[in-house]
């Protein structure tokens, strides 16, 4: 069967099997390998992408189900060469180590901030509670999302001080 959808703002059309999972469609058919997979039972969350603006576990969505809808992946966070504050936040606050859960965490973090621009620690932990990280122990992920919340314009370049050496 044929499926068409918008991915990161671009229309795509491909010939697929009905059973093809969205995560495999993104990774193997479109080459968008930033979305990962890590389990068989919809528990790990390394596959989280946006479907019509909402985080979903793409391992538990058929590519066919996404037909006619709007999908956004981690590759779509950066706009015109500028990192999204959530991406900058994860770097500033050491919110990643191996990087495998990171795209999913950032997609959920970004969606949270879009709805709740000033979340508490508890609200952040709740929002990411369906996704597992084995490296960070979560505290730095919470800080990273808080950083993005408090720096909605990302990282400002350090001001040039008069007379400072370059």
């Amino acid at each position, binding site marked *: 069967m044929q499926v068409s959808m918008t991915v990161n703002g671009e229309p795509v059309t491909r010939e697929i099997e009905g059973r093809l999972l969205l995560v495999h469609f993104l990774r193997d058919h479109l080459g968008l390998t930033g979305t990962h997979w*890590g389990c*068989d039972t919809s528990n790990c969350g*390394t596959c989280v992408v946006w479907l019509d603006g909402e985080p979903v576990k793409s391992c538990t969505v058929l590519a066919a189900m996404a037909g006619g809808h709007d999908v956004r992946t981690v590759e779509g966070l950066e706009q015109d060469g500028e990192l999204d504050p959530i*991406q900058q936040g994860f770097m500033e606050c050491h919110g990643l180590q191996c990087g495998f859960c990171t795209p999913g965490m950032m997609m959920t973090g970004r969606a949270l901030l879009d709805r709740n621009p000033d979340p508490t620690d508890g609200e952040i932990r709740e929002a990411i509670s369906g996704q597992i990280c*084995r*490296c*960070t122990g979560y505290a*730095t992920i919470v800080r990273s999302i808080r950083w993005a919340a408090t720096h909605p314009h990302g990282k400002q370049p350090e001001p040039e001080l008069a007379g400072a050496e370059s």
Partner: protein
Amino acid sequence: MTAVTERRLTEFTDNDQHPVGYGRMLRKEDPRFVRGKGHYVDDVQLSGMLHLAILRAPMAHARIVKIDVSAAQAHPKVKLVVTGAMLAEKNLAWMPTLSNDVQAVLATDKVRFQGQEVAFVVAEDRYSARDALELIDVEYDVLEAVYDARRALDPDAPVIRDDLEGKTDNHIFDWEAGDAAATEAVFAGAEVVVTQDLVYPRVHPAPMETCGAVADYDAVNGKLTLWSTSQAPHAHRTLYAIVAGLPEHKIRVISPDIGGGFGNKVPIYPGYVCAIVGSLLTGKPVKWMEDRSENLTSTSFARDYVMRGEIAATKDGKILAVRTNVLADHGAFNGQAAPVKYPAGFFGVFTGSYDLQAAYCKQTAVYTNKAPGGVAYACSFRITEAVYLVERMVDCLADELQMDPAELRLRNFIRPEQFPYETKTGWVYDSGEYEKTMREAMRIAGYDELRKEQAEKRARGELMGIGISFFTEAVGAGPRKDMDILGLGMADGCELRIHPTGKAVVRLSVQSQGQGHETTFAQIVAEELGIPPDDIEVVHGDTDQTPFGLGTYGSRSTPVSGAAAALVARKVRDKARIIASGMLEVSVADLEWEKGAFHVAGDPGKAVTIQQIAMRAHGAGDLPEGIEGGLEAQICYNPSNLTYPNGAYICVVDVDPGTGVVKVRRFVAVDDCGTRINPMIIEGQVHGGLADGVGMALMEMIAFDEGGNCLGGSLMDYLIPTALEVPDWETGFTVTPSPHHPIGAKGIGESATVGSPPAVVNGVIDALEPFGVRHVDMPLTPSRVWDAIQGHATPPI
């Protein structure tokens, strides 16, 4: 916990400090990961690449009667189907393990654990490969399974390893450490003796990325390129050369970005060998990525120790001796990675952080019909088990003596002036200021206030617990005279080259799975040479591009490879000094180094930077006598000893008496890893290990039923903590450098995984003190905690 969960953090530590050397800096590897441009094994796409899927045994112990692959072979998208019998014809059905045992690549005679590899298919895509597995018909003759290590040596137990000549039982080895007679004498004369049976259940590293490989055999050039999730690419390459009979110089192993290792990615798995065979036979690249159930049921687990601990003391709380008897379940094949002379790994550090008069351990290892082990789950070669044993026993003693557990530890710590301290099992701890570290943890935790709060809560029937753990680890394996794995010494190499424009490339033999090596190793070189870390490229993970070394596990990267990086940078600096002397026309002795430049002593204006020296080294004109052009050096570092990071952890828990639910309210971790290269990264390593400990203490377990069926084969059953199960970690540090390490650093990767489980368990048991609970085994699920409250705690197996 409520105060923190309501918090909205607005102040952030500045991690972007651009140190030229040690300090807080953002990670150099992050830009690709936050863009989703990491390059993991499953991201490898090669032209014509095929996909491999493995058929696995549905039961724990059975004879293979017949395998019919004809239907699978007839599938239009299948290129190849291989069974154990076919591999046996090429002598590839069995391979050596890292413990001098053998393991089946594909089962030939019997299957010996549920999930064992039986056959594989190679197909055009992963969906077809999976479909084809259903078309393979295997007839089994089911045998009785050994699933309980305590029954493995029963006279009527089925013999699992009848593939080994003359094997008539399930015994693997006996091992002992310490002095049995001296220890018995101390116990016999002791005023207080406490005995406790403890189980450390089977758990699993479960990194978020499962294991896998892409094998690409180029028949024209006779070269095999293997991308794999390997923590030890060089060791793997040497083993493939030995096992597969391919010349070593024609094998390239590439570990690209790896999504977590935790020891799970140290062994060579049958799947990797299958992928290689698949590529050899089809002439195409072949990818194998295991699914999560394969990862949990067939790859290397951790722990699975049944222990009896004994501790002897005076009635004033002076600990005299520790003794333990251990039954170790190794699964169906002994796949543990441990240095050859240490079949029980480094369990010998069960003497802990205390000044003992005597100690003795006897361990028996057995086969069972379960998945084989490996270096797993940040175990530091069994140190996690050892620390759990001693820290639980110390708390049991504190309970017996009705003494505060912090006070009991403080009374018995090895004192600073006793270092280097040789333990009663022959380990030489390098340095430590245990009391200082312990008191820092107590200060951060507000220990006295916590005990007051606990007393008030107890009076109201509320269950609050404070758990303490102090650990000493032995990491950084290790000196080649003592330590080798399958005959390969555990030294590590490092190569450093400075380019003409003063930028550099450093090539490591260790391999990152998220620890931040691309940053910290650049920082080590930066500290020695004054070249900014951003100007230093770190290369790792490719056997064609890096020097030989045994890989990353057991927290050995900083102690071994980090030392190599520092020393190779110093070699470069020594050469640079000579070149500088020529440039400044003074003798070498007249030069002083201030990070980044040499200047003439007493005349700081006359200086040359390392960048200028680099250009000179490559430029025209004579160099001083005896000095060749270029500015590079190479080293193979043989550590003189292990290093001994240590730490004091305090965990505060609240237990709901009506449901047994445990909430971890606070966790304070004070670590001493010696010299701190990047505090941001250290903190991250600690946080991750602390979460592991909460997981193991409260919820993680690979369980089996009476048929040997694995009940922990998915992440729905094998529970890993989420952000809601762990608190906001509170960390601190002390710094007691390692005297023998070139930069005094000790390593930190596994400290928190080692130290945290006993802190959590001690905390829960402390909470249950009003019910007279002396001990409860992990995992402390609500049901098991409630059982303990009712007075019938049971072991988990």
